[in-house]
């Protein structure tokens, strides 16, 4: 019996070129998936009988040129807030997949209570209250999964998904019931008048929700990299057992990171409703979380690095809406691009990892599986 092969990490090289090479490597590995996905998406367009160059040109025109960059920037606000929320929880190596429920419940409450609150209170106070309401409901929606995870180790993927289903249904019930606009037949809330919505950044059409989002991103980055809580969170993410031995209060860290994550995702709904839509419809689900996840990973769970990726995606989505219309494709084509980015990301990560470890590109196990796909237990005679 031969000794199992073990990857031996090569000794770190020293010298001035090392950091530069590392930066180059990381940049390459982050950008390459996007480039490859765009190329593969182009090939797909070609197969569907469209000209990929004119499609991407339309994306550029519709997403950046002639003030369209402002629409892209508006789209960034909720996405950045959700990205901040997911970064926190993923750093702790916990999955919060309940973002749809957290977002939509927040959206329902903000659009349901918004008209009355904005009528009765000074606008600035009402807006702050609505942001707090959205953040609170988003955070509240993570409490049960957080406690179950912290106390009993219940898998948070199931519990957050279940809470998400409940949240989406509850949001629909609220919109169709107490928050229904009595003057229309369609199930939707009252529409906020323009002068009651978030003010714009002076000189632009971009609402201040984007500023809130940037503040949140920087705050999360500070929290994760400069505070003791951030350190404890990362130890929990790296090795829960080590964290326990170090005296980290696991329950507290798990619950707090869940609450922060939910609050940021809830706040995203306030920014989106008060800044862009002005109302909510039943069964409306922009599914922002699904499209944000790839970019959170591409940014290597770094809150600052996620900004350019979200900016890129916002341009792609805004321009893509127009480009898909031009070429008579459903906007869902953009989902394919996001999926391709995710797939190429994992593959490139793999290649990078193998190379850094000095190993071959094909794992021994893969060779085995290719060689003998039908191994039976029968042959076990030792």
């Amino acid at each position, binding site marked *: 019996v031969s000794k199992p092969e073990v990857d031996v990490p090569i000794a770190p090289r020293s010298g001035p070129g090392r950091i530069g090479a590392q930066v180059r490597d990381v940049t390459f590995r982050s950008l390459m998936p996007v480039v490859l996905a765009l190329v593969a998406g182009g090939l797909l367009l070609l197969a569907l009988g469209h000209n990929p160059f004119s499609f991407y040109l339309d994306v550029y025109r519709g997403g950046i040129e002639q003030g369209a960059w402002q629409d892209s920037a508006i789209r960034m606000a909720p996405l950045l807030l959700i990205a901040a929320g997911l970064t926190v929880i993923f750093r702790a190596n916990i999955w919060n997949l309940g973002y749809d429920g957290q977002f939509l419940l927040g959206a329902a409450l903000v659009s349901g209570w918004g008209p009355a609150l904005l009528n009765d209170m000074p606008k600035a106070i009402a807006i702050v209250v609505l942001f707090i309401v959205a953040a609170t409901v988003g955070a509240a929606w993570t409490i049960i999964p957080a406690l179950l995870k912290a106390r009993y180790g219940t898998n948070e993927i199931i519990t957050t998904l279940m809470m998400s289903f409940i949240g989406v249904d509850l949001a629909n019930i609220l919109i169709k*019931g107490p928050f229904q606009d009595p003057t229309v037949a369609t199930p939707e809330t009252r529409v906020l008048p323009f002068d009651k919505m978030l003010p714009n950044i002076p000189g632009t059409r971009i609402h201040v929700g984007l500023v809130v989002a940037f503040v949140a991103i920087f705050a999360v980055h500070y929290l994760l990299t400069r505070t003791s809580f951030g350190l404890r969170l990362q130890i929990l993410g790296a090795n829960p057992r080590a964290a326990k031995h170090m005296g980290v209060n696991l329950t507290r860290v798990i619950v707090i990171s869940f609450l922060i994550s939910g609050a940021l995702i809830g706040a995203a709904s306030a920014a989106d409703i008060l800044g862009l839509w002005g109302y909510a419809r039943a069964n409306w689900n922009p599914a922002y979380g699904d499209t944000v996840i*790839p970019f959170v990973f591409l940014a290597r769970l770094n809150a600052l690095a996620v900004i350019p990726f979200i900016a890129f995606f916002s341009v792609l989505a805004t321009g893509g809406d127009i480009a898909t219309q031009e070429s008579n494709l459903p906007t869902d084509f953009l989902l394919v691009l996001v999926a391709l980015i995710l797939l190429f990301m*994992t593959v490139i990560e793999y290649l990078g990892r193998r190379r850094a470890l000095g190993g071959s590109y094909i*794992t021994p196990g893969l060779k085995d599986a290719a060689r003998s796909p039908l191994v039976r237990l029968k042959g076990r005679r030792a």
Partner: protein
Amino acid sequence: VSHLLSEEFWTSVIAGGLVAGMPLMFASVGETISERSGVLNIGLEGMMLFGAYAGFLGAYYGHTQWLGYLAGGLAGMGASLIMVVLCVWLGLDQIVVGIAITLAGGGITSVAQQAEFGASYPRLGSASTLSIPLLDRLPIVGSTLFEQPIIVYLAFIGIGVLTWAFRATNIGLNLRAAGEKPEALDAAGVSVLATRSYAVLATGFLTGLGGAYLAIVGAGLFTPFITQGQGYMAIVIAMLGRGKPWWVLFGSMLFGITLSLSDSLQIIGITLSTDLVNMLPFAAIIVALIVFARRSYLPPSLALPYVRGTR
């Protein structure tokens, strides 16, 4: 309230629950197989969508539901091949790849549907059923349980076979070992990667079949995002079923009934919001989790890629 006891109502509850529960059952049984072998498949939703569209195409152009089921199963299997290569062979993150498959499933089927049919959604004829003699004359259950498309009977038989296979065959043993302690399976001379690959392919086939059933029998047509989160629902059912096929079957039927209950209530004149009814099973499970606070059992090696020689 007396209507609640009427034959009409219960017939519609069982029939509706069965129609809505079958896709969930195919998908969650698939997920059970995958999870037992140690692979967490979050891409169920996407695989169901691939299966639903391919199944619809097969039934639409092939003029028989069987071609539809076959096409749906194969499409799901094709999607799961991505997972086999990336997650099982290369050991990449199963959750990330699963999310990618879900996104791709929604995007690709929506684009393909529009490219093929434009804005029209052609309907299929109703699926042919097989009545079981004598039993189909029973009240309530007769016209529901014993007058179904053949694939439903096959599925129930399949559940029995699967229970037996998990418990009493080498294949089942290998599968469980791959999820519980892959090192031991490897030491016994069985390839962990091959075992998991077959499991994931089986998951893909079953999930695709579930999607095909949804399009062919459930809806009779294909619309983009027809699954509406049923793939995620199936993941939840599989995890709560704790790897036991009969529990998974029971859970799927329960969720199927709640998905169709508001229609049944409508028949006897009770209007209850669909959203509320859909919410109930999840709320019940959350309450149960809090009250009983027990761990949902998952194989220890779930979602961990197996690389020989590492610990």
